[in-house]
Structures are given as C-alpha cells and as structure tokens.
C-alpha cells in the first residue's frame, strides 16, 4: 500500500523541481489532448511553444503579455504568503484601466510627457481603491475576501462596459463600444523598432526587484511570513492581522491597477469592453508556479505569456481552438498542486497495516 509520510522539513529540491515537473506533464498531456482533437501532436506543440519565439516581434509580444502577469502575480503572492486571498485582481486591473484611461481622456489634446506616469499612478490608485473594499469588509465585518473581491470583478467589468457604451463612448466611433484612441503622448514609449515591446516590461522587472527586497529584507516582509505560517505566533509577537490584510490587499490591488493602466496606455491605446484576456486570474497560476517568489514569478509569467501567444499562433497556423489556452493553464496548476505533495511528504511503500 502506498502511504504518505510527512517530511520533517520540506524538501528544497522538490520545491524547485516540481514546477519543472508540472510543466513537463502539462506539455505531455497537451500532446495527448492535441492528438485526441485530431491534430498532429508534434506540429501542434511546435506551433504552440516554438513558433512564437522565432523572431524579435514574437519575443516582444512575449514581454507584452508577461508584463501584466508578472506585476499582478507579484502582488498576489505577497498576499498569498500571508493567507490573504485576493482573487479579484481582474477587477482591480479593470479599475486601474478605467482610472488610468480616464486620465488620458481627461487630458485629451493637452498631453505631455508627464501624462503616462500620471496614468500609471492613477491606475494604481484605482486598483488599490477597489481592493480597499474587500480589505475594509474583511477587517471591519469579517466578510470573506475571496468572495467579495471576486464579486467586485463582475461589478468592475459592468462599470467599464457602462463607461465605454455610455458617457465615454467615442462620438466618432461608428457606434462601437469603445473610447477614442488616446493621444500619442498618453502612450507608453516602445523600446525597439520592429517590436511592440514597451516600457512596461522594465517596470515589471523593477517590481520584481522591489518585491524581492520587500519579502527578503524588510520587516513587513517578515511579518507577512509569520502571519502566513503561524497566525498564533504573529498574535503573540503583536503583529496586527488587520494591518497585514490592509497592506497586502492594497499592494496587490495597486499592482493589478498598475497592470491595467499599462495595458491601456501600452498595447491597447484606448478603453474597450474587454481589456484583459483574464490576466488577473492567470496571475494566480503564475504566483503559484513561481512559488510565490519574485524571481520564480518572472519566469512563470514568461511561460504563461507563451501559453497566450502560443494559443494564438496555434489558432492561426493549425486552426486549434483558442480555448485550449485555458485548458493548458488549468492543467498546469493541477499538475503543480499534485506534485507539491513531494515537497512536504515522502511516498512510502508499506504493507497494509492490520487492525486500525
């Protein structure tokens, strides 16, 4: 009989090996899935994982998609470490897009180089404000932050839809539900010719570095860790639980809002009803895949970004359904969670015990 025996200390080897194992198993299952759908597995996997990386344009696209994923996942990971489950990053991203994009519309025709930084700050404020609602309701009324932040995601989507079909609709837009294109100076500068890579990616790298410092070297990082691992110890040490909830939710909200503002000021350039293909949810997978560690999150974000553009490329090249991306992402998280058992437990073969 197979039994699990708890390890005295969690295994560092498996902690870093399991994400690799999970990716390997996902690709393997992907091959099976593609075959079942009637495609040549090798061809499909090539279209999915290799083709997008062949030219500098593709690499640029990779960074464009990785940017919001990394920024959001960094924020979520800080909360997850403290057992604060912000699941509504998608809504906070939407709010950040609304506030950041709203500034671009407000100053339309009066832009200057000061506008993009202002939009990014506006996005952070918007996202943080949206995350402040679950923070307040959790600390004041004990309401579950998972459900509140998730419900607010739907509300934010409807708010955006109202704005772009109502007051903010482009009068010259032929009735399409979207705002006018932002002025040129409201857009984030691109970094290289021949690629859409923009300044958002360096911002993501800075976020990663700042988060690493926060988690590894700061007192609040230490508090977060203690609260997450042993809440009673945190209580004895006098760390305020409410303060941790506020700090982590506002941080993750601000970062999700930043990602939203980057999206509208970067690749999109206007507000439309759907500004994110679920980045806020995929970032949850990114956070876990990256082991809640900033550097790990950066790699995980690049990988998940590949799953997005791979999905698009496989759709164009082979006519594979785009929904495969979601299945891939879900599978990856399943495999990761399943193989996690190796980190904390040893698998033992032992004879079935009698009695008991």
């Amino acid at each position, binding site marked *: 009989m197979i039994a699990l025996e708890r390890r005295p200390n969690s295994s560092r080897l498996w902690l870093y090996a399991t994400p690799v194992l999970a990716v390997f198993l996902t690709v393997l299952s992907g091959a099976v899935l593609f075959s079942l759908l009637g495609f040549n597995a090798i061809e499909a996997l090539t279209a999915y994982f290799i083709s997008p990386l062949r030219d500098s344009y593709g690499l640029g696209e990779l960074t464009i998609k990785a940017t919001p994923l990394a920024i959001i996942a960094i924020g979520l990971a800080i909360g997850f470490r403290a057992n604060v489950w912000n699941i509504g990053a998608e809504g906070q991203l939407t709010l950040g897009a609304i506030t950041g994009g709203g500034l671009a519309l407000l100053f339309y025709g009066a832009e200057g180089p000061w506008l993009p930084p202002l939009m990014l700050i506006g996005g952070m404020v918007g996202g943080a404000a949206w995350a402040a609602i679950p923070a307040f309701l959790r600390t004041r009324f004990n309401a579950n932050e998972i459900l509140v932040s998730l*419900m607010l995601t739907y509300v934010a989507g409807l708010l955006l839809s109202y704005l772009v079909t109502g007051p903010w609709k482009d009068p010259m837009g032929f009735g399409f539900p979207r705002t006018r294109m932002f002025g040129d100076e409201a857009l984030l500068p691109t970094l290289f010719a021949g690629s859409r890579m923009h300044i958002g990616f360096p911002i993501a790298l800075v976020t990663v570095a700042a988060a690493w410092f926060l988690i590894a070297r700061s007192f609040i990082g230490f508090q977060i860790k203690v609260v997450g691992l042993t809440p009673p110890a945190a209580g004895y040490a006098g760390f305020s639980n409410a303060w941790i909830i506020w700090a982590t939710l506002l941080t993750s909200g601000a970062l999700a809002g930043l990602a939203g503002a980057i999206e509208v000021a970067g690749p999109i350039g206007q507000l439309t009803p759907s500004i994110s293909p679920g980045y806020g949810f*995929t970032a949850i997978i990114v956070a876990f895949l990256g082991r809640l560690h900033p550097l790990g999150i950066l790699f995980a974000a690049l990988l998940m970004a590949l799953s997005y553009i791979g999905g698009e490329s496989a759709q164009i090249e082979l006519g594979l359904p785009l*929904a495969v991306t979601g299945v891939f992402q*879900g599978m990856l998280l399943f495999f990761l969670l399943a193989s996690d058992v190796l980190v904390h437990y040893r698998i033992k073969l032992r004879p079935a015990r009698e009695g008991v």
Partner: protein
Amino acid sequence: MDILAPILISIIAASTPLLFAAIGELVVEKSGVLNLGVEGMMLGGAVIAFIISVETGNSALAIVAGAAMGAMMAGLFAVLTLGLLANQVATGLALTLFGIGLSALLGQGYVGTPLTALPKLNIPGLTDIPVLGPVVFGQDVLVYLSFVVTGLVAWFLYRTRAGLVLRSVGENPHAAHAIGFPVIRIRLFAVLFGGAMAGLGGAYLSLSYTPMWAEEMSAGRGWIALALVVFATWRPGRVVLGAYLFGGLTLAQLHLQGMGSSAIPSQFLNMVPYIATIVVLVLISRDATRIRMNAPASIGKVFHPDG
C-alpha cells in the same frame, strides 16, 4: 392574478441553479472540505448536458451526463486535495479556471445551436388551477428534483447516523479518524455529491433556464452559491431561502430592464446580484461568533492522519 404566476415561475427558474449548487457545496463544507471549483463544475455540467441533449435528444440522459461531469470534475479535486493533500483554496480555483477553459473547448461547435427547453410537467386539472397550478404543478423535472434533493440533504445530515458521522468528520477529522471512521472516504463521497449537484445546476442553466450554450454562461452563479452557503450558516433550509431571495432579486432586476427604463443603465441593474451577494455576506459575517459556531470547524484544512 395573471401576472403573479409568471413572476413566481421566473423566480423559481432563476433560483433553481443556485439551489442545486449551494446545497451540494453545503454537504461538501459540512464534511470539512472547501471546494471553490463550483463555477467550473457548473460550466462543465452545463456544456455536457447541452451537448448530450443536442446529440441524442434524450433529456434524461443529458441531465445524468451533466451530473456525472460535475462529479468527475469534483473527483479530480478530490484526488488532489484528499489524495495528494493539495491546498483546497488553490485547487478549487484551478478547477474553476480549468472548467472555464474545458467547457469553452468542448462547447465550441455548439454556440448558437438551438434547443427546446426541458418539457414542463402538465397534469390536466391540477396545472389548470389559477396561479397555484402552473407554479406548483407546471415545472420541469429539475425544479422538483432540487426540492427533493434539499429535503433529502436536510434529512440525511440531521436525522441519520451517516449524516452525523459526516458532520463529525467536518468538525474534528482527527477525532473521527481515531474512532475509526474513514475520513477520506466520507469526504470523497461528499465532494463527489457536491460536484454532481453543481453539474445539475449547470444542466438546468443550459437545458431549461436559457436553453443554449454560451461561454461562461453561469456568470458567477457558482460563486454566488458559495456565498449562499455562508449566508445560510450551513443550514439546508436557509439555503432554500437564500437561493429564492437571489432568484427574486435577479427577476426584479430583469423586469426593470424589460420595462426599458433608460433612467438606470442596464449595466447597473446587472450589478445588483453581485452587490447583493457582498451585502449579504457582510450582514451575516459581521457576527464573527455566529460564523464560528456554525461553520464546520475543520473547513479547508488538509487532513493527514499523522497530524
């Protein structure tokens, strides 16, 4: 009188998927497991029930398939959380993300396919009674099933020995294990039942409520069902009450939209169920003692015999 019956019928229609999903999750949580994958399992049930119904024309088979799909997805959750001791919150989220993707993939060829709604029961004589007739005797089979299931769950949990064991597993799995109850197996059954019920809720959506398939057609109902369990303080009777309150609210909102009042944009009316969920959660949760007294004590915690 003429408008009362249709209103009641629509409230029942809007409430039934919530009732199925919430009563299933209630049993799961009573056993000490938190499965946040309800939304994903509902979508799985909805898409499979729809496909089977379109392909075979057999609605009984479609309903069973919807429930089976929900249970299968719950089985995946069980393997991970009960077998491999994975974090329940993360696994539930993964199940929802996976369910959204999988249902979109499976349902790809079926978007826009028409389907006749499940037939309503029609008992000559009884169904003709004004108001009461069509409301009580003119529903489809899933509506009746939702009430049968709720009644059975209430009876099972509070009137049978097996129900007592299940609740004790949710309160203190280590004590239950020490006495000799198979904690993992009991939780497995609870999780599978919860999945089947979420699948039925989904099947009701795609077979009866809006007989069609659309990506993410559950529109957050799985999450609202999770909130309803908290609202009901883990009691079956109050789950019915909560589900019907939400059904009524959904209907009121649809009616306001139907009246075409341009004073309130439709988006704001559409926000109502989500905001109501938050309000309800706040009202119930602010009494922390009440939640602590009613919530299964071991909810969401991984169980391993070694402790």
